[in-house]
């Protein structure tokens, strides 16, 4: 007679997948703020109109163009918080060009986001890009003022 599969005493796989998101939600890494007036800090501020989430992501870049610190503050659903938390983890230690390569699909895959929450990973990618472009603008301003003064 065919063996009946023994019922597993543990919850099904999708609960384990949720644990990653729950982990980021309950123990978010890199929550906080950097001084946005500093010249080496880039601030990205994005909002999602459909769900009303707001996300702020800040990066601190050293002289070699490497991101040494990142902080975020997100007000929204657990997936948005997890996406931005993961984003700050990933950008740390990367160069600016490497950070530009981070795609929302990578974030969504890492967190196993369901289709309805994919826009949260999109928001995180846009926040990274906004922070990087803000930093670049600041660097260009710095160069301009250096040129005019010299």
């Amino acid at each position, binding site marked *: 007679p065919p063996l009946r599969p023994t019922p597993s005493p*543990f919850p099904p796989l999708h609960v*384990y997948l949720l644990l990653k998101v729950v*982990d980021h939600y309950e123990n978010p890494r890199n929550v906080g703020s950097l001084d946005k007036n500093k010249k080496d800090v880039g601030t990205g501020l*994005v*909002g999602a109109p459909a769900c009303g989430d707001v996300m702020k992501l800040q990066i601190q870049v050293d002289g070699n163009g490497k991101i040494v610190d990142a902080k975020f*503050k997100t007000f929204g659903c657990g997936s948005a918080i997890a996406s931005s938390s993961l984003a700050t983890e990933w950008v740390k230690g990367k160069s600016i060009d490497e950070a530009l390569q981070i795609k929302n699909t990578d974030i969504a895959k890492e967190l196993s986001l369901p289709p309805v929450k994919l*826009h949260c990973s999109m928001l995180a990618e846009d926040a990274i890009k906004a922070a990087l472009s803000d930093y670049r603008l600041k660097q260009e301003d710095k160069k301009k003022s250096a040129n005019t003064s010299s």
Partner: protein
Amino acid sequence: MFHVSCLRVSSSLRAARCLVPNRHAAPKAVTCSRHCMSTCLHGKGTGQRDANFGGLVYRTDGSVLSRSCSTSRAKLNCWNCQQLLHRTPSFFCDSCKAVQPPEDGTSYFKIMDCDYTFTLDTQKLQTRYLQLQRTLHPDNFTQKSVKEQEYSESQSALVSKAYKTLLKPLSRGLYMLELEGMHLKEGTDSVAESHFLMELMEINEALDEAQTPEQVSKIGQDTKGKLADLTEQIDAALHQGELGTAKELLTQMKYYANIEEKCCFEDDKLEERASHPNIIEQDTQFASGQKIYTVLFKVIYISWNILC
């Protein structure tokens, strides 16, 4: 009121949606008065198979092909006694009193018998809702046929949905935009000014750091004020048919509505904390235990999967 042209376009779109074949349309017979049909068929006289009038294209076998443009909906018949249903929307047949299935494409405003405007009398809405549910609720149909029970379920659910959508200004405004074919963008807001987002951030942060219920209610009051202000602006924009402006304002409203919701939540949480100071200790007491439990759980789960 909306511009009449907007209304006409949207009503024809809705009417077109009405005739898309689906489960609900199947039991109904879509007919036109026999007089019209016969004059058209005789008028053509060339043996054409299709009769075309009022923008409707009917085959002689009675099935409907398409609807190009119409300002009134097709007349529907009761599934039970085949009598014409006069009202839009018809919940019950006038002759045999049987409950009717909901018509697709009927706007929530029609269902709740409200004017198609942003300003709404919520008292009137509530009265209408209770009045409808008193007759439509499935509890009244437990002794009736399965078909009638199904129809009453869908009607009751639809009325509930219509009520919930029209009750709050935000959902009402968004629904009105949806009827005109506009949706809030799914993606990120690049159009929103950065200082608006910064303001939102500051309010959110202040709410996060609030220690006393008074601080929370102050933020709640400010937000309510902003929402009331936005409601007025949206009403004005919709009156003048400025859908783009209304959409931007409704987006802003969405953010503030989220904050307002959080204020109520935080308020309750802080009040609970204030009345039970022991709860704060409990939170930290169990936090470390929960962390260890989560790690242990993961280890056991992975090893179980490896072993089996």
